[in-house]
């Protein structure tokens, strides 16, 4: 039941039309999204060797 409610909430949250912003800067949402992505990628920078090692484990030897 809880899982179903969460899924329903996510679907409604992501599919409902956003409010109209007549004077909104259309680029600001993209920039904020880029910043959030950059934050996560920036974190992965510190674990890049571990991530590369895990990736290598799942990469066939002939494709390395």
């Amino acid at each position, binding site marked *: 039941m809880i899982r179903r409610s969460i899924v329903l909430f996510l679907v409604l949250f*992501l599919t409902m039309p956003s409010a109209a912003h007549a004077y*909104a800067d259309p680029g600001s*949402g*993209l920039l*904020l999204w880029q910043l*959030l*992505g950059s934050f996560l990628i920036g974190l992965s*920078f510190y674990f*890049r060797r571990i991530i590369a090692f895990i990736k290598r484990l799942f990469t066939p030897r002939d494709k390395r």
Partner: protein
Amino acid sequence: MRDPAGYLVTCGGRLVRIVRPGYVGAHEGLLTGPWVQALCGSGAVSGFRILPADEAVALVGHEAVGCLCLEHDVIRFPSYPSEWPLEMLCAAAEHTIQLCLQAPPGVGLKDATPFNILFQGARPVFVDVLSFESRDAHDPTWLAHGQFVRSFLLPALLNAHYGIPCHTTFLAHRDGVEPEDAYRLLGPLARITPPFLGNVTMPVLLSARAERDADRVYAPKRLGNAEQAAFILRSLFSSLSRTMRSASARRHRKNIWSTYTATCTYTSAGTAQKTAFVGKLMQESRPARVLDVGCNTGDFSFLAARAGAEVVAIDLDPEVVGSLWQRARAEQASILPLVVQLARPTPALGWRNQETPSFLQRAEGYFDALLMLAVVHHLLVTDAIPLADIIEQAARLTTKWLVIEFVAPEDPQFKRLLRGRDALYAWLDRAAFEVELGRHFEVVRQEQLVDTGRWLYLAVKRDAL
């Protein structure tokens, strides 16, 4: 024109970029540096030379005083995103991203628009050298990311997933598609799944928040570690490149023109006869610039290109133009394929209608040979253009040669287009066609295609005789 750092002027066929005095210091070192010079040498960036001050003033006039003047290599037939199929838009995007990825630390692109790219034949060339800027190597953000998404990524994704041809997007919107506009087109599932989730839905949902915190969002960002900033930017560019490649690879439909040569009425003998007819002109007269109207698979464009001509090949179908571009790129042929409908050619666009000239402004008088094979009946019937106007337009496009195919109303393909309007074209026969042709051209050679009853004409423009 829009860049405060500089602008372009043409002086007697020479193309000069004037960098305004306040921006010379920021650009001169970068433009004369080894990286940009190497890109110019490889052809990835349009070549230029810095004009000595006295030569610049003599060429441009007093507005050059105190400015940095660059004389660019001229790409003689410019084309614009409103004429590119999906494949060419993706190639332009990939070219832009590769420049970002290859840039040395502390250098980047300040904008990312398809208008920074022109095609030399089928090869993309970056032309706006003032887009290169020095940047803080510790800054992990790319301010041009939003412009890249709007003007490359979203038009490509909407083309690939929803069949909205990207060239039509640029006819109406210079800066591409806003995420808010794309969002309204998407179904519920597309909104919550890649690639639209990250490029449309999340930016739309975040835009209200971003607007409230605009000062913080746009404040310069700086990390303590330049290597980390470079890692973030590389990841961003690689992600954009992957998304563009996935759009390019996605085939959303087959169409009738893609398989035209397999389904049309020509036999192999007819095709060979036509090839020999066109080939003879190319070998004997060696036209330098050829326009192939209704190029379809581009077989005659390749014939002309192999004879040394610079070819512009136009067709109304973006899918066949995309396929032709891929083939021309693979064979490094001097062919520029464009999505242009001769009955409704690309208009002049932009500020004062002067930012991008119309197709006819660029094409009229530029070509010394014009191919109009199996196309006149489409213009006549489908587009209802009078024959006299078609021939007059042909005479405006070519300075000398015209290869034109006459298709009679009895031809099965002509009949398919008529749809019961036979009476409208009852007057049309070879004699009537030759009278109209004769008003602007003199027929040099004519030949009946053995299998279809169609006629090929090689004609020379009267004022070129």
